[in-house]
């Protein structure tokens, strides 16, 4: 089979071309996923570009992105396939006058024509190159996870009435998880694991520069540094990359070129979403070194 990428470095540079700044780990895992033909399980805090990774890979491959958004209560008929039973009923009604046997009708109504494909099956049957994104897989119940296993390890779907449908080509598969629960061992075993954390300062600055047009280098640098500083505090929810970008855009709109304390604290609500976090960050940024690390063990 042809490989999609030459080397991890090639992955990295082509991702860079579509404005997705990866790092060594991300590029390496995407490269391996292609070579080994394995799905990638992407985990990490919200807003660090997990979903965007799948989109960007689809973009550089010129592939169609098929997305399955997971939620509690997702079942076979929403994820894999469903029989179009209304059409089947119509068919039976229409056949009533003819002298066709039951066997004929049965083989007829359980054929392709009456099959509604859902994302997973669609990805398997696609002729054109596709990237399959199974988003927030931690939201489905443990039992539903089992639905995914066959497709993830063998790239096939078994439909009792039709037999097994195998993939025409091995698509790239990305699963994302916000880690609200432990995924089953069976699922993890079938995937390559990639943890995307908050980027380091230098990378974050590059991300801001590439995603926010017209921003000055100086402002991007400051933004990245302040965000790093905020992430070091103990917060309920640390600012994500997307929030950093929103903040940078806001500062730009306000016509700020060097952030000072007042501007930083006034616009903090864009970075932080909890009142207690905002209060804490305001206090710390305005120079109060009082509670840097609460709960330090008392000995």
């Amino acid at each position, binding site marked *: 089979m042809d490989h999609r990428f030459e080397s991890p470095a090639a992955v990295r540079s082509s991702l860079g071309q579509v404005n997705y700044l990866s790092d060594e780990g991300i590029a*390496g*895992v995407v490269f*391996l996923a292609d070579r080994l033909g394995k799905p990638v*399980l992407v985990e990490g805090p919200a807003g660090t570009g997990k979903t965007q990774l799948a989109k960007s890979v689809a973009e550089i491959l010129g592939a169609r992105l098929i997305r399955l958004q997971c939620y509690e209560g997702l079942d076979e008929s929403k994820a894999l396939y469903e029989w179009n039973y209304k059409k089947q009923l119509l068919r039976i009604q229409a056949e009533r006058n003819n002298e066709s046997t039951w066997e004929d009708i049965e083989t007829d109504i359980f054929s392709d024509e009456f099959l509604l494909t859902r994302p997973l099956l669609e990805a398997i049957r696609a002729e054109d190159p596709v990237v399959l994104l199974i988003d927030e897989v931690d939201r489905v119940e443990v039992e539903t996870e089992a639905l995914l296993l066959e497709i993830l390890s063998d790239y096939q779907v078994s439909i009792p009435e039709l037999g097994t449908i195998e993939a025409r080509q091995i698509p790239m598969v990305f699963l994302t998880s916000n880690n*609200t*629960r*432990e995924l089953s061992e069976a699922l993890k075993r079938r995937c390559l694991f990639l943890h995307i954390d908050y980027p380091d300062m230098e990378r974050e600055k590059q991300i801001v520069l590439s995603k926010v047009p017209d921003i000055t280098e100086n402002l991007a640098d400051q933004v990245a540094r302040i965000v790093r500083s905020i992430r070091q505090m103990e917060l309920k929810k640390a600012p994500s990359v997307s929030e950093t970008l929103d903040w940078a855009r806001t500062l730009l709109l306000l016509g700020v070129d060097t952030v000072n304390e007042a501007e930083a604290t006034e616009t903090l609500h864009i970075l932080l979403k909890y009142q207690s976090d905002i209060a804490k960050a305001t206090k710390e940024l305005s*120079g109060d070194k009082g509670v840097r690390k609460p*709960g330090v063990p008392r000995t």
Partner: protein
Amino acid sequence: MTPPTATEVANGATPPPASSPLLDLLEGFMGELRAAGLPVSLTENLDAMQAVKHIPIEDRGAFKYALAATLVKNNAHWRAFETVFEVYFSIRGKEYALDVVSDGEMPDPDDESLQGQEANGQPGAGGGGDGLTPEELQRMLFQALLQGDEALLRALARQAVKRFAGMEPGRPVGGTYYLYRTLRNLGLDDTLEELMARAREDSPETLTSLEERLERDEYESRIDRLKKEVEAEIRRRLVADRGVEAMARTLRKPLPEDIDFMHASREELVSLRKAIFPLTRKLAVRLARKRRHGRKGPLDFRATVRRSLSFGGVPVEPKFRYPRPSKPEIFVIADISGSVASFARFTLHLVYAIAGQFSKVRSFVFIDGLDEVTSYFEGVDDIAHAVHRVNTEADVVWVDGHSDYGHAFEVFWNAYGREIGPKTTVMILGDARNNYHASQAWVVKEIQKKARHVFWLNPEPSSYWDTGDSIVGEYGVHCDGVFECRNMRQLERFVDNLV
């Protein structure tokens, strides 16, 4: 000091997967990962072997991530993996050869004194920078930190280890000893302030407190990096001296969920505190789901018949009896003295994180006196902060601040005993080391009579129970269960069963 395998691996430009050195190395590596507690399955093992076929070992970063992607499926285990990886692969590869510092990494060429020294020195033999006086070394280090020059930092870290750590082959001391020696000699304690002072001088205007903070963060992170370099260098040397297996064994650390509460080091406590948040969140989600889903009961015949009357006696709509699991009321009584304090802290944290699962949570802490701390948690969304307040503000000392379970229980019984009802579950946390005071076990007996359950969680290994001044057995007979609860894993299991 050069290890035999380093050259073998470094020379094998394209390591054929079947060739034994790399394979053996990987075998050992996986074995060590398993020994460190990472669940590495056979499939994952095979995947890793497949993966390294595609990535040359020379590309060390990519190689590391390839192994990580196939072997580590839980981010909490990343650190353990990294340590093992460092040990197994750190000394392999030319640029990591021990005593040779390549010219590219040589210290600042602008430094005249250094250049002079170097010309005279024997190149390659002892590495560069040997002739530096300690003051010069320090000065260069300061410059490197100020400018954030990574390569220079790395070179200096090596030099510092070589010079200050005083490492001798075969000496049976831990790596932390060498680390301590090196860092003490570098005198990094004041460096941060000096750097800050310099930053203040260099800036045209006075720094605002925001700028000050940012500068400080930057320098702190650089100093951290230096420390990491030093640590890595020491490790490399130790591996070379003692061999990979022995080194890996000494560095083996428990995973966050297996860290013993009572003997956690400061650093481990930090990693525990980081681990507890995702853990509690997961637990809360799981419990909430359980409650939502387990709601299919048997047919409620009476209600169905009653309902059928509106349809002329046809049971159109069957009625079911839904189980209504009662939400227990929780009383937590925790010993927060000395060694068991961290255990109490984590348990309180966990209990309050899932407070939604209980109808009411009340908490009491004691050493030899007892105080109710429920109010600290009310309307607070930062549990860690509330727990911190408990540890600093609660009035728990009666006489001398040594645990006195007997007196604490007596106080509890007199003040709050009548509030215990049949829906109450009482959790007592502590090691029951009573300093030979009177046990007053009758209180626990009385509590058990009134309460739904009484559980005792003991952070000591069960083999230590009832030794010395531990009288957990005396209380235990009146409890519905006494559980050993030494680490996060056991604690989580207990709370899961409780709900």
